[in-house]
């Protein structure tokens, strides 16, 4: 379905790109928010990715799904933004305000646990994972991508995808079990 649409766009019906954007924007946004953890920046990244995808549409070979190709562009866009952010973080490392923000985040996590909102705790725990692990988990469980698709998006071998998913889930399980044990509940 997407492939036919891409061909139409390449033949000159450029306005049809709106259909492709509408079709994939929600899932793309979910991936971007998971990676960047900031809605406004995530939306900018999604826009960037769609614009880059459009400008390189003639390079889309169609041997993989359009969504796989788009997510790869989006993943790279988010990674670039994270790199920039990391470089900026280096300069504000000694800023007292940034330490205060970190402390606030930690205390809000504790509050969530006290209220027993495990879903929110899980979200918080997912945020603490490495970007590649977060992306692999989001792509697998939220976007319902296959191992092959995730490997193509993250440009890593399929074995690494399996390891990322396994380690990510194990980490989350251990952390959630730890939190729940504190609450006297079982997973």
């Amino acid at each position, binding site marked *: 379905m997407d492939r036919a649409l891409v061909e139409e766009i390449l033949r000159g019906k450029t306005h049809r790109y709106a259909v492709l954007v509408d079709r994939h924007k929600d899932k793309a946004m979910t991936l*971007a928010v998971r990676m960047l953890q900031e809605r406004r920046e995530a939306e900018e990244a999604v826009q960037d990715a769609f614009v880059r995808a459009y400008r390189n549409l003639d390079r889309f070979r169609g041997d993989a799904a359009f969504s796989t190709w788009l997510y790869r562009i989006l993943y790279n866009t988010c990674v670039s933004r994270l790199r920039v952010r990391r470089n900026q973080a280096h300069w504000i490392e000694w800023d007292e305000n940034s330490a205060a923000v970190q402390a606030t985040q930690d205390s809000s996590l504790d509050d969530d646990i006290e209220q027993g909102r495990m879903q929110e705790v899980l979200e918080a725990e997912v945020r603490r994972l490495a970007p590649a692990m977060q992306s692999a988990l989001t792509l697998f469980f939220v976007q319902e991508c296959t191992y092959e698709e995730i490997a193509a998006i993250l440009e890593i071998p399929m074995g690494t995808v399996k390891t990322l998913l396994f380690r990510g889930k194990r980490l989350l399980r251990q952390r959630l079990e730890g939190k729940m044990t504190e609450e006297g509940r079982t997973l």
Partner: protein
Amino acid sequence: MSGSVRHPEEEVLEEYASLRTSRPDIEEHLRNCPECRSTVRALQSVGKALRALPREYPGKHLTEAVLRRAGIDPGSPKLDAMLAILAGTFCLLFLSAMVLGVFLLTGVVSLDDVHAGPAVVEQQWLAGWAAFSGWVGARLDRLAQLLPSATHGRAAVAACLVVAALLLVDVVLGRRIVRGRHES
């Protein structure tokens, strides 16, 4: 994992829990191993919770922003509106043809009237409306005899009317949606 029983690797259990495909060897082991069963259950709980994580939605103007930034003309609203009107006209013509067909079949309007022009058809149409109503009533009565109850006949007619009404609503709404998309 302890004892002399050979447990599957946790990675294998994780894959089983994630993919939810049939693995008779693992299922056989799980039947007899509460330890691995509990591991799989915990892994499935994490997977279920991950699947249930809230989706994120972009602002409603994202598509327009992408098109603008990519320098794409969002298409001609006039063309869309014209297509919507064309579709609506076609539907109305189709419905009119169906009604005329019924009138021709029932003899309310003859082919000569049709050839004589629209004014004659209209005259005959209005004159024949009462007859048509009577005809519908008679058919309903006949249907009532054929069907287990008159309710079925009325239901069939009502269903036809509902379909026609839905068709019209669809055309009207379709036009409004197209217009709304371009206005937004």
